[in-house]
Every structure is written in structure tokens, then in C-alpha cells.
């Protein structure tokens, strides 16, 4: 995997906030450039090749969305993120229309998670599954994350691809007609010891999991309860927020209670 450093441009008129975000971003291993207004940001973008720009919406000289539009004119492949403390649904839509990611300052956790997941260069992913429908869906989802995956419908195809192309990550199904996923993983590792592998299965058991881990490969079950748990988590979060707001209200702080509750409603 190439260790290519990513240039991040942070634009915010609040210098204190800018400084703290910049420090944390540097700690994550990125090259950081800072600007306190839109004009300064554009000047930096003319001189440097910026990969990612994180822009505040409210600034004295020009709005964040305007800065993003101008940055995209200068560097068409720049990834942009609108960061705002006063977000609403319209702003979110406008930001998405500009093909830009939107984060709320109230929820910096998501922003940091996003930065941590930024691809650090070109990664070749190989998907192996005998079910073409599942393979296509998986490939589509990976394409949405910004990667172009290789696909194989059986173990032999996968081995052929790995022989000719440098593969960084292989996602392999366990049950396939020509050979088992574990066998495919073993053969792929013989070809390239550095390859990272991941076993996907709809019929998992503890032994299979242990065998996968013995091959220093990761293991996932297809039929996870993700959707259900996401729903439960959402309901619990909503209840937690409303009760926190009720707590603030019964303590006599109606303003903050309304803030907590309406912010949550907006986010939904």
C-alpha cells in the first residue's frame, strides 16, 4: 500500500476552533493547511494540491458553500466537507448537491471517523463470491466508497487475478462450487503473503471462525442484524435525547432543553 500523504485544508473564522482541529488532524498523519477566511483558502488552493477541504459555513467574507464551489472549480477532484454549527436540512441538501459531505460541529465524532477512514492512496480490492447478485451489490457499495474492485465468481478466477495484479484486500465467500473460501484464502496468501483477507459467510460457526483467524484473516457473517440494531439504537438515542432535554427543563433550564430537543429533531 502506498503511504501517500493527504493535504487537508481547514477553513474556519474561529481561530481557537481552527487551531484545535488542525492539531488533531496533524496527529492523524495528514498535511494540514489552515485559512481563516474564504479568500485565503482559495489562495492556498491555487498554490497547493489540496485533496480534502473542510470548510465552515458561516464566515465573514463568503459562505462555506461558495468557498466549496470555487474550490471545486480550481481542483475538480477535491473532496469537500462542510462543517457547521448551525446546520439545517436545507443546508445539508445544498451541500450534498455540490457533492460535498456535511457534518455538524455538535457531532465531531462522525467527522473524525470520516477522516480516519479516508483512503490513503490506491487500494486494489478483490471480491470473490459465486452469487453474481450479491457480488454486484457488494461491488457497488465498494465503488460508492471510492474504490474500483476486481470481481471473481470462483476460486480459480480469484487466483488468476491475484497472479497478474497486486491485490491489497480480498473479500472471499466461504461456500463456492470449485473450492472453499478458506482454501482460496490459503492459496492467495501463498501468492502474496501481504494480502489482507476477509472471509464472508452466511453459514458461519465457531470452528470456521477459529480456522479463519488461524489464517490471520478476518471473519464476518452475511446475515448480521445490522438493520435491526440500527433501528433499536436510533430509538434509544432519540429517547435518551428527549429525557436529557426533560432533565434540563425540570432543572429550570428551558432554553437548553429546547436546544437539545430541537437539535435532535433537526438531525433526524
Amino acid at each position, binding site marked *: 500500500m502506498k503511504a501517500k500523504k493527504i493535504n487537508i485544508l481547514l477553513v474556519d473564522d474561529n481561530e481557537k476552533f481552527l487551531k484545535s482541529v488542525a492539531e488533531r488532524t496533524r496527529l492523524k498523519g495528514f498535511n494540514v493547511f489552515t485559512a481563516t477566511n474564504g479568500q485565503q483558502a482559495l489562495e492556498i488552493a491555487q498554490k497547493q494540491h489540496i485533496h480534502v477541504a473542510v470548510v465552515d459555513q458561516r464566515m465573514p467574507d463568503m459562505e462555506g458553500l461558495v468557498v466549496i464551489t470555487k474550490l471545486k472549480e480550481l481542483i475538480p477532484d477535491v473532496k469537500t466537507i462542510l462543517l457547521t454549527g448551525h446546520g439545517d436540512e436545507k443546508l445539508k441538501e445544498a451541500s450534498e448537491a455540490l457533492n460535498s459531505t456535511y457534518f455538524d460541529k455538535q457531532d465531531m465524532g462522525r467527522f473524525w471517523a470520516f477522516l480516519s477512514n479516508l483512503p490513503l492512496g490506491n487500494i486494489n480490492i478483490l471480491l470473490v463470491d459465486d452469487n453474481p447478485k450479491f457480488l454486484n451489490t457488494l461491488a457497488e457499495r465498494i465503488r460508492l466508497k471510492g474504490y474500483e474492485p476486481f470481481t471473481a465468481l470462483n476460486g480459480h478466477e480469484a487466483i488468476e487475478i491475484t497472479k497478474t495484479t497486486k491485490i491489497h484486500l480480498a473479500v472471499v465467500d466461504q461456500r463456492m462450487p470449485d473450492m472453499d473460501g478458506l482454501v482460496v484464502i490459503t492459496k492467495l496468501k501463498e501468492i502474496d503473503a501481504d494480502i489482507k483477507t476477509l472471509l464472508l459467510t452466511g453459514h458461519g460457526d465457531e470452528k470456521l471462525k477459529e480456522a479463519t483467524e488461524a489464517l490471520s484473516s478476518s471473519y464476518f457473517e452475511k446475515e448480521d442484524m445490522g438493520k435491526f440494531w440500527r433501528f433499536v439504537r436510533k430509538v434509544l438515542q432519540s429517547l435518551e435525547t428527549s429525557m*436529557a432535554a*426533560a432533565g434540563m427543563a*425540570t*432543572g*429550570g433550564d428551558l432554553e437548553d432543553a429546547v436546544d437539545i430537543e430541537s437539535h435532535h429533531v433537526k438531525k433526524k
Partner: protein
Amino acid sequence: MVNIRARSVGWLIGSLMVFVLSCPSLAFAAEQATVATAVKTWWFWPVILFVFCLVLGILAVMAGVGGGVLYVPLVSGFFPLHIDFVRGVGLMVALAGALAAGPGLLRRNLANLRLALPVALIASTCSIVGAMLGLYLSSLNPDIIQICLGVTIVGIAILLLVSKNTEKPVVNKQDAIGLALGLRGAYWDDGARESVEWKTHRTLLSLCMFILVGLLAGMFGLGAGWANVPVLNLLMGVPLKVSVATSKFLLSITDTSAAWIYMNRGCVIPLIGVPSIVGLMLGSLIGVKILAVAKPKMIRYMVIAVLFFAGLKAMDKGLGLGILE
């Protein structure tokens, strides 16, 4: 438009309040009638209590007054239940509200653990003493507790009426005890878009005040948010936001200690507790939704007036004057 909406919500709440006060008396009248015909179902009072508490939960949130503070005087004043049972469940009600709010407030970095823990140590110890003292006094004569409760409730009504909390109190120099305990912190103010740093002063005096707060909370099962917030905010100089959130978190410790004493003496009856807690929790959820749309100020004054009346009624009941019967 907002005014009209606020006014209509105001009228709605006004009607709810009339309903709250008439609810037990109507039920009581119905009970008299049913007693006459010797037909009485076990779920009669729990259902009335549930509806009463549901409305109480809505009003508590909209008025900015704790559920426990409203619950004890109103239920003991208007329902045919012994004061010990009402106080026991009152603590459970306050505890449920605090426990439900705690995680959200801690996650938002509003409740401060460093501030809460020394205060909780004092207040929860004293709330145990308060609970034991309250039950002892009640065993001597329940009227003593009724009178003391009445005086406290009138005091709380006056406190709610006159106390003006400060959003960001100015503390020029932190005192030695506050410094030693590390009672300082910072939170992000989204409105002003800045990080607000705070520290405490008059720490010793405030900690002493929590002895009294703990005693009262345990003795009457009132929760103690009404006392915690002014002490933290006005005396110690903690910002309002942090005071309210920390006070809520504090209640989950203080009230637990006192609640054990009541549970141990058999004062927490599920048939009273479950409808009360479920009603108040649901009411709070509805109240928050209404509050996000409109917040008519008169609700607070109406609730304070009701509290004042309930306090006087408790005194009247304790003294056996029969003026407000």
C-alpha cells in the same frame, strides 16, 4: 403566529391543570359512589394516578419544575394515600427522571463528574439521615411531616418565584477548596461559538448547604433539583447549563441513598409507584415535544401558584384546621 401558537398551548395547559386538580376529587366522588354500591376495582386508583402523573409530567417539563417537587405535595394533598407511601414513590419518581436524563447529559459533557462527586458524597449521606429522620417523625405523628412539608413547599414556591439564575456567573478567583478538589471545567457554547471555562468559589459554604439540601431531599422525597441548582449556580458560580445537568446527575446518587431507606421500610408500593413513574416519564416525553414548539411563560407561574396552594393545604392538613378541605 408563534404568539397564537403559544397562547393556544397555554390554554391547553391551563385546561390540563384544571383537570389535574379536579382529577382526584372527581375520582374521590366516584369512589364514594362506588363504595356506596360496594363495587370497587383494584385498578381504579392506579389508573387515576397514571393519568394524573401523565399530566403532571407535561406540566413539570413546561414549567421547569422537578417532577418530585410537584408529585409529593399534590398527590399527598389530593389523593387518599399515606404520606410515607407518597414520599417513597416521590423519591422513585425523581430518581427515574434523573437516571433517564443522566446518560444524555454526561454524553453531552454538560454534567460534570468532578463537581458532582464531592457534593454527592455529602448530600447522599445527609439524605439517608433525612429519610430516617422523616420516617421517625412520621411514626411519632404524620402531622409533623405534613406541617414541615407544607412549610418547605411554600418555601420552594417562593424560591422558584424569586430566584433568578445566572447563565454565566463571574468567578474572579477560585477558592482553595475548589482548587484542591479540581472543581473547574469547560463546555462548548454553540450560541456564542466559544468554549466557556468555569471555576467555583465559596465552595466550603456551598458544601455545607448541601447538608441541608440532602436532609430535605431525604425527609420529604422531593428530589432536590430545586435546591441544587441555586446553590451550584448562585453560590458556587457554576454556569446554569452545567449546574442543571450536574444537579440532575447528582439526584441519581442522592435519591438512591434515601430511596433504600424507604424501600427497606416497605414504603414503596408498586401499585402506586409503577403508574406514577410510567405516567411521569411519558408526560415528560410529551412535555419536551410541546416545549420544542411553544413555551408559554404563564405555565410556570400557574404551577408555582398550585405549589403554593398545595403547601398551604399540607400545613392545613397537618395542623387539622380544615380551612382548605
